[in-house]
């Protein structure tokens, strides 16, 4: 099947669109869609406009729904309406169902209007472009800069056991792309970045730079760090000059180049300032300047905007995009690690979503929207919504399934790191929203980053207080009861839910029950978890379990002795309970 995409690309590049369409007649719709999918997005749009409506309708349901949506936007409204009309009804329902609410509303409104006025060319959907002449074929450099083959990372536990943090994965970084890697915290995003940048050798597999093994070669890369990693005792100028000094650039040349970069990032006049005199945004500008000074081939960015306030971050993102799209920087590719979904959709040409424990590629797709992108546009929301879906639903996988290397051992249930109070807050919010809401709306309303919201949702789902489906979160009857209850009732509901559904806490309780004095060292549970998680994750798991268990009044914990004991109801509580009954 691999020859069709190439054949198709040649045909499109030579403008022989009729022949290309002829080719589709011979292919199954799935293969044809795959071949189209492999084209650069501009060519996809041109080709798609030329397709007969029937064929387009048949192909459209073979694309991922978000891509189908963006392709449909390439058509004029009447044609779009006709294409949607001629889709198979079942496929059409599936497609429309998958769209987030606003986008769906937007689309059906447009289609409705198109049907009633049967011919009105500019009927409102923002993206219906005028027919453009076929642009000169984009010179697509197929050669990726970095190719990672089956790289994986494991860490040795003190007792010699290995914990895998990154499952074997393939990844390539192509030129002229901003690649964003998304994932929950602790999913190994930063580890992946460091392996690709040559800072950390993979445990297995290899990383190739222009086909050469990374080890021993000096790839020309730069990293922008989340916490800037500036040297506080060096002035802004010295910080930017330091990498050039390391390359033996003579003094005058060093000064000239550093100054040039400082002008580019808007830091002219701050050369002799020390980092601590600067605001967070300015510090990160120094970070960018230092990275750009070496004119890196690939610019790695490790959550570069997450230590900044919202406005500063937005401003810096815009400026970065401007530098990138106007080719003011010589960087050929940007590799961005982030946990902010909107940031990824705003900046990236390609998004890779990682799942955690160990990290696997859950989705890898392109975002063909033109820059600058509008956060409020329907197409933007489609992608944001889709990423929420991917991140909350492990079963939704675009990438080929990864063979599990675990030796068939059942996976230990992982507690999301959240507090009972946060879960209660989420449930109350859902009550205010008639019990159901899109996740990105919840994040917006609570002013929470994805990273902070997802564990709360996972916690609520784990306890059976809510369900998450297709990027929506919905409260359950139990959740409703919990949200409406008073403090004491909440605790008992929480207790019931925890004991029914949380494996670790149930195990802890039964272990405590079996002891005559109902006391055990925390160490014991630590050792149980040791087999399944890394040390830092074990500590987090225990912290969460203690937090939940103490809230639910299942056990108490004495930090001084590091011991867990079964919760004993105090006299006051028993009296209270008696009074209630």
């Amino acid at each position: 099947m691999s020859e069709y995409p190439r054949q198709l690309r040649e045909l499109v590049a030579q403008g022989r669109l009729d022949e290309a369409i002829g080719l589709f007649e011979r292919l199954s719709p799935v293969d044809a869609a795959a071949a189209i999918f492999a084209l650069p997005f501009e060519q996809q749009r041109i080709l798609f406009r030329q397709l007969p409506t029937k064929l387009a309708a048949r192909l459209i349901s073979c694309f991922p729904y978000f891509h189908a949506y963006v392709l449909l936007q390439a058509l004029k409204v009447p044609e779009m309406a006709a294409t949607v009309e001629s889709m198979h009804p079942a496929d059409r329902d599936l497609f429309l169902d998958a769209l987030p609410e606003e986008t769906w509303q937007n689309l059906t409104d447009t289609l409705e209007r198109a049907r009633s006025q049967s011919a009105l060319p500019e009927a409102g959907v923002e993206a219906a472009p005028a027919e453009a002449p076929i642009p000169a074929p984009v010179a697509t450099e197929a050669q990726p800069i970095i190719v990672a083959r089956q790289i994986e990372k494991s860490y040795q536990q003190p007792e010699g056991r290995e914990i895998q943090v990154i499952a074997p994965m393939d990844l390539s970084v192509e030129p002229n792309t901003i690649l964003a890697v998304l994932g929950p915290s602790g999913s190994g995003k930063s580890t992946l970045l460091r392996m690709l940048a040559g800072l950390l050798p993979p445990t297995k597999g290899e990383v190739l730079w222009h086909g050469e093994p990374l080890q021993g070669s000096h790839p020309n890369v730069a990293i922008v760090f989340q916490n800037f990693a500036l040297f506080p005792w060096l002035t802004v100028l010295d910080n930017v000059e330091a990498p050039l000094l390391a390359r033996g650039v003579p003094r005058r040349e060093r000064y000239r180049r550093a100054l040039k970069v400082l002008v580019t990032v808007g830091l002219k006049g701050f050369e002799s300032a020390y980092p601590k005199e600067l605001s967070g945004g300015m510090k990160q500008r120094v970070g960018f300047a230092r990275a750009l000074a070496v004119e890196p081939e690939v610019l790695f960015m490790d959550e570069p905007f997450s230590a900044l306030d919202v406005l500063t971050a937005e401003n810096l993102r815009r400026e970065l995009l401007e530098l990138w799209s106007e080719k003011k920087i010589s960087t050929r590719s940007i590799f961005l690690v982030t946990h902010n979904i909107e940031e990824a959709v705003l900046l990236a040409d390609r998004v890779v979503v990682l799942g955690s424990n160990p990290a696997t590629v859950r989705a890898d797709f392109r975002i063909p929207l033109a820059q600058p992108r509008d956060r409020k546009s329907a197409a933007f929301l489609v992608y944001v919504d889709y990423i929420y879906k991917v991140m909350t639903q492990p079963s939704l996988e675009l990438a080929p399934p990864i063979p599990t290397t675990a030796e068939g051992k059942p996976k230990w249930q992982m507690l999301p790191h959240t507090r009972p109070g946060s879960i209660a807050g989420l449930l109350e919010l859902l009550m205010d929203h008639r019990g159901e809401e899109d996740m990105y709306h919840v994040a917006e309303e609570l002013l929470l980053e994805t990273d902070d919201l997802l564990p709360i949702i996972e916690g609520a789902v784990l306890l059976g207080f809510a369900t998450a489906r297709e990027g929506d979160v919905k409260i359950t009857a139990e959740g409703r009861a919990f949200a409406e209850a008073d403090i004491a009732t909440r605790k008992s509901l929480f207790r019931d839910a925890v004991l029914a559904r949380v494996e670790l806490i149930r195990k802890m309780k039964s272990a405590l029950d079996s002891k005559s004095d109902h006391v055990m060292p925390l160490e014991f549970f630590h050792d149980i978890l040791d087999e399944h998680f890394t040390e830092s994750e074990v500590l987090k798991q225990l912290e969460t379990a203690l937090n939940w268990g103490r809230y639910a009044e299942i056990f108490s914990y004495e930090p001084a002795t590091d011991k867990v004991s079964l919760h004993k109801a105090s006299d006051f509580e028993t009296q209270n309970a008696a009074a209630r009954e």
Partner: protein
Amino acid sequence: MKGSPRERSSRPLAWGIFPPAVSSVVTDLPIFLAAFSVFYAFLVVARYWFTPFTAQAEISLRPSALPMYAMFSVIRIAISYVIALLFSIAYGYIAAYNKRAEKLMIPLLDTLQSIPVLSFLPGVMLAMVALFPRRQLGIELGSLLLIFTGQAWNIAFSFYSSLKSIPREMHEVAEVYRWHRWQKLMQMELPFAAIGLVWNSMISVAAAWFYLIACEMFTLGKQDFRLPGLGSYLQTAANAADTGAIIWGLVAMVGVIVVLDQLVWRPVIAWAEKFKFEQIETSQVVRSPILELLRSSRILPYIGRRIVDPVKERIASRVAIKAAREPETRGRRPIARVINYLPAAATLVALAWGVVKMSGLALALHGSELRGIFVGGGATFLRVEVTLLLAALWTVPAGVWIGMNARRAAVVQPIVQVVASVPATALFPIVVLLLTRVGGGLAVGSIVLMLLGTQWYILFNVIAGAMALPTDLREVCDIFRFGQWERWRELILPGIFPYLITGCVTASGGAWNASILAEYFHLNGHIFSTTGLGALISEAADNSNYPVLLVATMLMAAIVLLINRLVWRRLYAVASTRFKLET
């Protein structure tokens, strides 16, 4: 430094009234004078060093001789400090980056730290005098090395732990931009460690003043050694029971210490501010007029531009070229690996040989001597603990009283600092003289002496702890009308606990070390001594009784290490988890 610092620094005086040329002469003149006098001092000392060997310099007790002696002592301390600093940087660097060496070097450092200075005396002196038998140089070098053993270990430890705590991201910056070792050292490691190096340097130099008496005048077997210096002046005055001379010597020593503090340490601390590893500017900054004088000078930037910068540039570019030419070698060849193991093997052989030799020496001891050593260990142990208890008893209330009131602290703290900077050993003669008048023996007197040397560590830490008590917690106590006792139990004692422990750790080590000087004392032609490990070590060093010296030293090191491991480290862990005031 880029840019001209002149423009940024505010001038200490209104020199704007002078024309620029005059003002530059006025500011640069002191710098010239200082440079020339330092140069002259070294010249004098160097000439003296190459005079023929005289074991006993004639020590004159005339006050007019004091400036010369002070100069000798200062230069002695300065040189040994520089050696200690270079040694520490090398030692810390190797220990931090060579995993195999680290396993050996850090416990070794721990042990060395717990060995009292005096125990090094015979070995060091004999070796150095044997090296240069004809010249004064040999005995001077011995004295230098002895001072060095009192200075080096804590600096090395500080540098090592600084290197270990450099944030991962900084290392990554250095690696991704391919900094070579030299650049890493100059732009990352030394600056990051600077603050710790400065504070530990101050501690080390204070320790050098403390041991100065022992290091400048000592007996080795039949021979008395005496080097010209403030320490031997004080000791000679004490031997002659010349109270006037003792006070003169004391005044001179305090004067030198105060002047050094103003001329050297304060400018250095103010300069080191820029190495603080913080991302936000603090409002409180240490100021130093001397540093401002240096910064407003014209000659220094000129030297910097014309000499220092080009040299730095030359080194940097040469290293960069070399680094670029070298291919990255991750896997070493087998021969290189064998060579790599050689130092470790050599060390092991040396260690084994040392152990055999030492056990030979130790076996030569009589049972009674051995019993004496253990009894002494017990006595000194009790004395150290009593000292700590007494010190805590007065410093905790006093420190809290000072620290709880910001205005009071601002007035009292500098005074306390000056008083504390007087090396306790310099006070010993006076105290012992007083004690003998009163009729108390050294058994109790040595506790007073040890207290003199160690109480300040606790006091400073308690003051710092009291100052760090959060205002809101104190307000809670006010609102709920806590009584004095409740206030102490609920807020003050838990709040200062971590600081108190930190102070006690340092004080405990200091007290053990001080016991050597406090339990055995030459005065007025007599030897005052009492039962104790310190006295045994001093006496053994005096009489070249190597078996006793060795075993007593090993016992002391073992006790200090054990107490650190079993008591202080655990208390420290409790303090840093349970009693940590988190904001």
